């Protein structure tokens, strides 16, 4: 009985220490994000990727050069069929 009481006390201490520690640790991580990461984000913002824009513009242009919707439909259906056949992998 006494043994069990001791175990309970140990478990209680462990629970307390554990929860305090977990909160402290993840709390520090909040501070880390808000202070270190945010500053880094401001100092080194992601470069704006413009390289792909022209490609899309091109595509759009092609569509406007008089390709009829039925052709586009045919192509998308061909591509989707192709995808279905290759979906397995």
């Amino acid at each position, binding site marked *: 009985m006494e043994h*069990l009481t001791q*175990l*309970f006390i*140990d*478990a*209680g201490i*462990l*629970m307390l*220490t*554990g*929860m305090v*520690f*977990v*909160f*402290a*640790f*993840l*709390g*520090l*991580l*909040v501070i*880390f*994000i*808000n202070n*270190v*990461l*945010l500053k*880094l*984000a401001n100092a*080194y*913002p*992601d470069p704006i990727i413009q390289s792909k824009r022209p490609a899309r513009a091109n595509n759009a242009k092609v569509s406007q050069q008089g390709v009829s919707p039925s052709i586009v439909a045919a192509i998308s259906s061909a591509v989707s069929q192709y995808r279905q056949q290759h979906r397995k992998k």
Partner: protein
Amino acid sequence: MESLNTLWMSTGLANFELGQVIMMLVGCLLLFLAIVKDFEPLLLVPMGFGAILTNIPVAGFSEAGGLLYYIYHAGIETGIFPLIIFMGVGAMTDFGALIANPKTLFLGAAAQFGIFSTLFGAIALNAIPGIEFTMKDASAIAIIGGADGPTAIFLASKLAPELLGAIAVAAYSYMALVPIIQPPIMKAFTTEEERKIEMAQLRHVTKIEKVVFPLGVLMMTIFFLPAATPLVGMFCLGNLMRECGVVDRLSGTAQNELINITTIFLGLGVGSKLSADKFLNIETLGILALGAVAFSIGTASGVLMAKLMNKVSKEKVNPLIGAAGVSAVPMAARVANKVGLEANPHNFLLMHAMGPNVAGVLGSAVAAGILLALVG
């Protein structure tokens, strides 16, 4: 004649013990749950199969020289397989939602109360005759509340290898049951109004934040909790490989082939611990019961923490995402999203719930480290 007799004596039928039959049925049950009910099949299929193999009489899969013996001792006893899995999980994890809304870390922290309160429960079960859990056993059981498979397997293999089978079964079963266990608890602790709270769109997270984040986590773990560095370290390595952008082929392999290969063998090896003498006892029942309690308490703690945060902070969070703090990535986040949609069809919580969800992974790895440091 003698030959026939030798053959008969070498059949399973002539050598079966009841416990082995029951454990094979347990293995079949795991396969059924995995295949038909879609319960975490990636681990439960090899694990259920391993449970069947290890209980075959005469074959000696788990005795010296047997296949499962090698797998268990080389991969699980050493901790290598769970750590490789954790690296792969790191390579699959996007911390963007967490970085965009760091407050959600507190939700992931609160949900770990599921772990530590279960410690108490496990010790209390010692009152039942036939159950005798040491503090190491109790710690290994409590980690089920972390809802994180590799963490549970890693800790159990270090603290209570003889309970590993039951702990893994409980952990993965409850992870699969998250869509059933969590919603009633989430609804019980929230009002309709609270569930309708919409959250602001998350800010864009830059590449440098994502690259520095795993390193920051690692550094803090090194400073404050080296015992957690095997788990957290491999997780951060995987995440760094994912985000740094210069080792995509390593990251791809860690997320695919390497984690797949390891999962097959991890499952088989864990299944090999599902032998009758280690599983068919009242302690297993206790572990299963404690696991359910741990999940429920973790869920409730996350939800209540969110409500508390709403009391002190002006920017409201939907308390449903607190439930995702138990980890069980990405199931728990999806559940939060689904329950949110039920209350408000325009309420898309998935991305918001990913924050506490991945915070829960860190939280339970930290909790495992604490238990290793103080009890191990």
